[in-house]
């Protein structure tokens, strides 16, 4: 049954390729030999890494004259868990034109065998895709300030955690942290997410309150926007040992 499915997938992909309709880079699909998650903490210590995000705006509208990214390029609501792509593996920045959606954009789990033919209708090909590059060292484990209204439960928590209380206009000044997490999707193993955490190191998954809105704004204004580049500064290949399961396959 599985063999039949594999053969069908190969047949469909070959037919798409021969007729010039296979545009999606199959090299970026997850493979069963790959580890479920690349350890970014370990990887970025070893080699300098770049991630890329696309914008549907032309590049003149993405950056100002200092090369600082305009804030209207990314919506504040997209900041928690914002999608990006890791370069240095199989993903090339030209691939940002492909936008997997729906089932194809779901997280790859349990080493699921991926058949492209199953998801080929869940890919949009974008006509405008301006790449925005970031060095991971400028996004991973970076502190950013935010404010949160004073309340008794927050005060109690800060006391318990022995966090110094800095008050400003009836609000507490706090520090959150941004990070990059490898979250491979069904059609893109090299998909990563930009994540933000509050002062307790709790992940902010969605914006539900005013202080979370403020934290996301701060991360966008001062971590994302200032560190974005129009040009890719460099690309260093990621050693296979970081994403292949077996050590005999390593470089």
């Amino acid at each position, binding site marked *: 049954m599985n063999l039949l499915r594999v053969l069908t997938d190969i047949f469909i992909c070959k037919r798409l390729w021969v007729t010039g309709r296979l545009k999606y880079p199959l090299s970026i699909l997850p493979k069963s030999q790959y580890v479920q998650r690349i350890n970014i903490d370990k990887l970025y210590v070893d080699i300098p890494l770049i991630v890329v995000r696309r914008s549907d705006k032309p590049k003149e509208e993405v950056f100002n004259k*200092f090369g600082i990214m305009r804030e209207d390029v990314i919506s504040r609501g997209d900041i928690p868990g914002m999608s990006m792509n890791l370069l240095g593996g199989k993903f090339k920045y030209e691939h940002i034109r492909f936008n997997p959606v729906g089932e194809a954009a779901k997280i790859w789990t349990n080493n699921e065998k991926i058949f492209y033919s199953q998801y080929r209708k869940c890919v949009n090909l974008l006509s405008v895709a301006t790449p925005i590059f970031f060095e991971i060292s400028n996004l991973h484990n970076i502190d950013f300030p935010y404010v949160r209204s004073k309340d008794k439960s927050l005060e109690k928590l800060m006391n318990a955690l022995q966090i110094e209380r800095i008050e400003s206009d009836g609000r507490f000044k706090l520090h959150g942290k941004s990070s990059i997490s490898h979250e491979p999707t069904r059609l893109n193993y090299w998909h990563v997410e930009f994540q933000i955490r509050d002062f307790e190191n709790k992940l902010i998954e969605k914006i539900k309150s005013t202080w979370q809105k403020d934290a996301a704004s701060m991360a966008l*204004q001062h971590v994302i926007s200032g560190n974005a*580049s129009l040009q890719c500064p460099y690309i260093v290949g990621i050693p296979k040992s970081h994403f292949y399961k077996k050590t005999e396959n390593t470089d």
Partner: protein
Amino acid sequence: MHAENIATREKIEQTQYWSQSPSVQTENRFNPIVYSNYTSSELNQNNKIYQLNISWQKEYDKYSHYIKANQINFKSNVQKLNQTISRIHYEDYEIELTPNNSVKYTLLLPDKKILMITKSFESYEDKTEKEIVFSIFEDKKLILSDIKNLDELVAGINRYIYM
């Protein structure tokens, strides 16, 4: 209809005012006798305010739909901000209106560091609030980021520049 006319007239007056040169603006605003007592640094600051206001107007013309608060108050607050920001000894600048009800200034400092200042108008009713978020970048790397009173930041940055 009446309110629309007032708004249009206000916009024309502001455009006319900001399209004048700084010296004409100064002449229009101040008695010439008093004007002659202005020092070169004060004239320089007037020029910087003029440039900031022009840039702000251009940004506003393009992105005024981003402002969700009272537009007249928003504009007058930005003009006050421009006056304070003009006291910083920067070499170049850029103003940006963001979809999140805030104004962002990107300033190039003499030592080529980039200072980014964001003033949010989300808690718009609190007009006395002078709290801003700032970040300093060196070669695209964030080296400092904090929340501070704008007057204190201006004084601190100028102190740093002349160190």
